[in-house]
């Protein structure tokens, strides 16, 4: 539907958008610029270093220093996505289609780790799995922070699409539980699962607290490595590493926007 905008509306919407974007993006823009411009010129610098130039040499340098951590972060994110998918789909299905006494409370409780400080979650995980270290424990930590998002996306999609009625129709047509899952429920959830997976990736890719506290040895997730870089190396180099971090994140965020846009209809 076309909507006509009055000038005052346009002014309001425009200034709010620019203000909001500026507020959120300015620090990020400064850090990315720091990778290419001497940082003292941006008012960030403690030292005036030579700017890193985006050439093959610079890329090799970054890969040498951060490649291992990038790969580790990628592995953590992919494993987390896999487990979140396998867990959230049946859990969301049960919570929405077969609600039981206390199921709503359970749905809210899953959100709890999101508001707990990373240190508390980390200590809890270390206490719960004293023999585990490394990848397993980091993935467990990331799951606590990402599963709520995946579960929310699944339950919201099941509720808004009225999958219950489609399933009822499939039952009257003779479809068994397996056939309904495969031919009705999962296809209806496809868009939600893509968005959920991308969200999980974005959260896992950027998670610092739990990753750092649970796995202070080697290897690190990329954000934890970033922390070490900021602490020990030049600001210039840290900014360059941050730019690299964003390079992994931005495509995922853009994909979420694209998959969630209302113009896209599910096929």
């Amino acid at each position, binding site marked *: 539907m076309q909507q006509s905008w009055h000038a005052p509306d346009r002014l309001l919407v425009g200034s709010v958008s620019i203000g909001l974007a500026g507020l959120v993006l300015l620090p990020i823009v400064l850090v990315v610029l720091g990778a290419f411009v001497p940082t003292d010129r941006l008012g960030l610098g403690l030292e005036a270093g030579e700017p890193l130039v985006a050439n093959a040499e610079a890329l090799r340098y970054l890969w040498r220093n951060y490649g291992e951590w990038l790969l580790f972060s990628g592995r953590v994110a992919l494993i987390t996505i896999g487990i979140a998918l396998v867990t959230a789909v049946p859990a969301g299905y049960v919570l929405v289609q077969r609600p039981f006494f206390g199921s709503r409370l359970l749905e809210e409780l899953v959100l709890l780790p999101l508001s707990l400080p990373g240190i508390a979650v980390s200590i809890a995980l270390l206490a719960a799995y004293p023999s585990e270290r490394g990848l397993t424990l980091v993935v467990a930590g990331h799951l606590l922070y990402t599963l709520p998002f995946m579960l929310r996306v699944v339950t919201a999609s099941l509720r808004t699409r009225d999958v219950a009625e489609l399933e*009822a129709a499939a039952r009257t047509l*003779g479809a068994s539980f397996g056939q309904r899952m495969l031919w009705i429920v999962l296809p209806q959830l496809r868009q939600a699962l893509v968005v959920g997976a991308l969200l999980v990736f974005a959260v896992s890719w950027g998670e610092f607290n739990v990753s750092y506290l649970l796995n202070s040895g080697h290897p690190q997730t990329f954000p934890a490595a970033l922390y070490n870089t900021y602490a020990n190396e030049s600001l210039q180099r840290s900014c360059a590493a941050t730019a690299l971090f964003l390079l992994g994140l931005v495509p995922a965020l853009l994909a979420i926007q694209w998959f969630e846009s209302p113009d896209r209809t*599910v096929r």
Partner: protein
Amino acid sequence: MSTSLEIRGLSKRYGGVMALQDCSHVFTPGQITSIVGPSGSGKSTTLALIAGLLRPDAGTIWCEGRDITSLSPERRAFGVVFQSYALFPHMSVRQNVEFGLRVRTLPRAERERRAARVLERVQIQHLQSRRVDELSGGEQQRVALARALAFDPRVLMLDEPLSALDARLRDTLRNELFRLLPELGITTLYITHDQVEAMSLAREIVVMNGGRIEQTGRPRDVYARPANEFVASFLGAANLIEGRVSDRRKLELPCCSVELTYDAPNEPCWAVLRPEDVTVVPAGRGLFDATVTSFAFLGDRVRLGLAATGCSLVADASKDRTVAVGSALGVKLQSDPYLLPRSR
């Protein structure tokens, strides 16, 4: 062979609300039965119970002499057209129609043959490759019907299939269903709140209210001889006037007294008068006089609101008639009023 279907003492409660109370009925095999009632009367609950989508709290459902109460919906093989159609949005028209055949693992050629046959039957073969969300409401309704018919269901159930459509399309599709459904010879349950739809389509109607079956029978009989005040006023318009019978044949109404042509018990009663049974004549020439309180032009006729001593009633008159509100008219009765016993 048409399928026999029977419900015995069905009851269903949602929390503290009795949605259905002790409902029993034997559906005529191979015929269309309309289940009609206002919203909340329990008709959709009845459908969900018969389809197996809900479990009754009490009572049983019998099909072909077998108790199917605990049989899952997927094993009942009852075709259902849902009110919202519930078409699978990620499938094409043909995939929707073939769904019931696909789950039965029929060979592809057989599936295609049967889908083509049913698509032709509901006249949408040209739409078979389209996505269902590209279709109009009327087309979606046909797809839903085709999907429910494709696997040769034992019983066909339609839940308010025309309620989402505009008035003109509803008329067209009602006429098509009127042609198609009897041809099929399937035991069919047609759920609607529209009494015209119910009476025109079905051989038998089941009138429901407040979770109970109020009356069952042929449409003409139920219309002419309603079992109670609810049925009288729900099926078509009716004037219900408090009266009393004395001397077996004398009906005393507040506005007049009527000599009945049959014997009736001497007791308080409701006189049921359909608007088409009330005719208006010039003042002083009828059974009694009344003042016109409203006048509505309905296209094929006019409907008059009338006030007489101690009662008000509606009457239908020819479409050419114009009457001023406030003017006086005489009222005649075309036939004997139908009497319902009145307690008190």
